[in-house]
């Protein structure tokens, strides 16, 4: 199989999985108790009013027809209209991604920037002070949930020191500086647990590869310790680190739901959380499908990165 054919097959299987996911998501959300029209209207509404709103929202249509409508819409780029906000779901998701994407990118960059050096130096001198600190950081970082870190940051940095806002997001229109400063603390809260996992993986990978024959050979041939580390050990240790980054993406997504809530950021996580509470079904469907797509695509990206990082795998993929 050519490389293009392999990628095409891969894409087809992703589409098939997404189709299956869409059906499961649709049915699960339908089965959950709670009628959107009743929730929107509140409890003094008369049954006729509820029926009128159901008709207006299209909720009186048969189940399968509504599912097909959604699929056809997806294919043509029309994600439907939010029941609660009354604006196109596509616009809503785009607005929210403008907050969540920079947030997750920032968090990922931070976590790599913390974990890589920490893990490498910890592995280099096992039992040393850096190693000890790295292990402690990994232990605590994994144990403490990110929303809790968020609360501590609000208390310490935002309220205590007054350096950054406690939450909210005025929008990118309000200026890059304001936007970034609103994202820093939530990004740190998201990054710390991720960095903790990555530190541990990096440390283990570097330690393992340092003991490998090819590193020993390089050292025996006179290569300095530091050069052997950066030329041979670290590049090879990146493989498990990249794998872990890929595996972390679902955790990152669920992390944004919690962290965005703590910092009242209008991101995709808050959108999902509120839409579910309000039974804004059409929004929930699309957001969950988007999450699934992100996870699937990130798996493919990780696979492709393998090939870049490890030439031996190129023949197989």
């Amino acid at each position, binding site marked *: 199989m050519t490389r293009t054919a392999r990628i095409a097959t891969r894409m087809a299987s992703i589409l098939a999985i997404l189709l299956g996911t869409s059906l499961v998501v649709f049915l699960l959300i339908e089965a*959950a*108790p*709670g*009628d959107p029209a*009743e*929730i*929107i*209207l*509140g*409890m*003094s*509404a*008369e049954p*006729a*009013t509820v029926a*009128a*709103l159901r*008709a*207006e929202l299209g909720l009186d249509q048969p189940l399968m027809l509504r599912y097909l409508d959604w699929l056809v819409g997806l294919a043509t780029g029309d994600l439907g209209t939010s*029941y*609660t*906000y*009354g*604006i196109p779901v596509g616009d*809503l998701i785009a*607005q*929210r991604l403008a907050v969540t994407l920079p947030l997750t990118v920032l968090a990922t960059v931070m976590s790599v920037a913390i974990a890589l050096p920490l893990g490498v130096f910890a592995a280099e001198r096992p039992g040393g002070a850096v190693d000890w600190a790295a292990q402690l950081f990994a232990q605590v970082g994994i144990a403490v949930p990110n*929303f*809790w870190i968020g*609360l501590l940051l*609000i*208390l310490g940095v*935002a*309220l*205590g020191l*007054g350096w950054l*806002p*406690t*939450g*909210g*997001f*005025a*929008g990118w229109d309000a200026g890059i500086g304001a936007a970034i400063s609103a994202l820093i603390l939530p990004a740190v809260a998201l990054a710390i647990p991720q960095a903790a996992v990555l530190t541990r993986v990096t440390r283990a990978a570097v330690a393992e590869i340092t003991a490998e024959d090819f590193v020993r050979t390089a050292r025996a041939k006179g290569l300095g310790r530091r050069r052997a580390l950066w030329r041979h050990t670290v590049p090879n240790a990146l493989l498990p680190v990249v794998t872990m980054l890929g595996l972390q993406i679902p955790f990152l997504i669920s992390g944004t739901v*919690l962290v965005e*809530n*703590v*910092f*009242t*950021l*209008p*991101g995709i996580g*808050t*959108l999902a959380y*509120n839409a579910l*509470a*309000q*039974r804004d079904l059409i929004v929930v469907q699309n957001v969950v499908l988007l999450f699934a797509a992100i996870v699937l695509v990130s798996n493919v990206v990780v696979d492709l990165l393998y090939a870049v990082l490890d030439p031996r795998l190129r023949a197989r993929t």
Partner: protein
Amino acid sequence: MHIAPRRVTFSTAGALLAAILCGPALAQGEDGTVTFVQSVEPAGLDPTVGAPVAAGEVTWQNVFEGLVAIDRDGEIVPQLATEWEISDDGLTYTFTLRDDVTFQNGEAFDAETAKFTLDRILAEDSVSGQKALYDEIESVEAPDATTLVLTLSAPSSDLLYWLGFPAAVMVEPVSTPTNQTEPVGTGPFRVTDWRQGDRVIMERWDEYWGEAPALERIVARFISDPQAQAAAIRSGQVDVISLFGAPELFGQFAEDDAFETHVGAGEMEVVAGMNSEREPFDDARVRRALMQAIDRNAVVEAVKSGYGTPIGSHFSPASPAYVDLTDVAPYDPEAAKALLEEAGLGGGFEFTFKVPNRPYAQRSAEIMQAYFAQIGVTANIVNSDFPAAWIQDVFQDTNYDMTIIGHAEPLDIDIYNRDPYYFNYHSDAFATAMDEIANAGSVEDREAAYGEAQRILAEDLPALFIYSEPKLGIWKAGLEGVWENAPVPSNDMTDVRWSE
């Protein structure tokens, strides 16, 4: 009726925040902007569609106005109607309207617009969640540009009050399809930006018919978690929290000179409704025994840090017609046990207590459970996801024994006269009392009739009446004109200004 949506997350961490929230408030540029907190983001900004509470809290009075308005004291005052006349039989209302009013899209307001607005609420395919309040209106006529005539099918002494409500604000016909996202009203502020999930920005509108407000801009910020609200006002990001949800933090603000605080009268009654069609709740003696088993003061102390008023019936102490009936079924465990004995349940009984996942409801339920245990009654608490699952399971399907919820709509005592309604309560005496209220010819008669209705409920106890929620308001020192009480769910900012 509206049931208070309190969306609270991560409040377990609240104790920690509470401990440290004593830090200094940041300096605030006291310009022409005031930012107020709103815990629930509305579904849309048009209070005439859907459940109007959250929408009204953003746009009522600020953007949209009605024929009449409810002022900060709960009184009905003229607004787009300058005066009105009610016929002796109470069936014809004739309003005289202002002739100098335009909508924010440039269209004029006249009697035809008013007729359009009311007809729209009453229409067959209406999507007004409050339609039931205006059911007595039989027809609406606009004989000339400044005269509006309502003909009623039956007298309704509360109609004027409801016409002052967010659900009945005047809307401009062309703009109705887009009012949810781009509202067009006759008010002094105009919505210029709605950043969904975060804030609504409203700017002063220069063509306003009335007196211009002092503020140039008002901003509604949506922050659901009370801890986060507290953090936001501490750090200077917001100026007003008119309905603060964390009473345990309130005291700290009260002691701080940087803030003004006010414990106002609220409209929300927290009641534990029972399914009167299920045994043993069909027996009034059992309901009374459960009521007498509970020390309401202790519940208020534990759940609301003492802010709140124990109630004996379904009525807010904020209302002039309120009667204190807490002594009708006072805390008396011995009397409660005797009542159970009398009802043939001396050995106690067990039931399911469906509790919405809202902190006030859960905390109250746990305390009540302990009190019930003292008279040998076992309440098995089951969590119910609010609003979705609760509305379906408890409210719609009435599949419950006992539940607990805050009823936030003002003057909603008539819910006990609705059929169907989740209490499954039927009382001819109460129905008669409600008729008397509707037919009341004078303010005194109306208040007396409301008193009678309260008394019937206090004796009959279709629900356990626990407490009335206070309106805990916090705002920056130096702000003037913020409403201290909340006769209507609103954040009316039209009279607010920074002091010199």
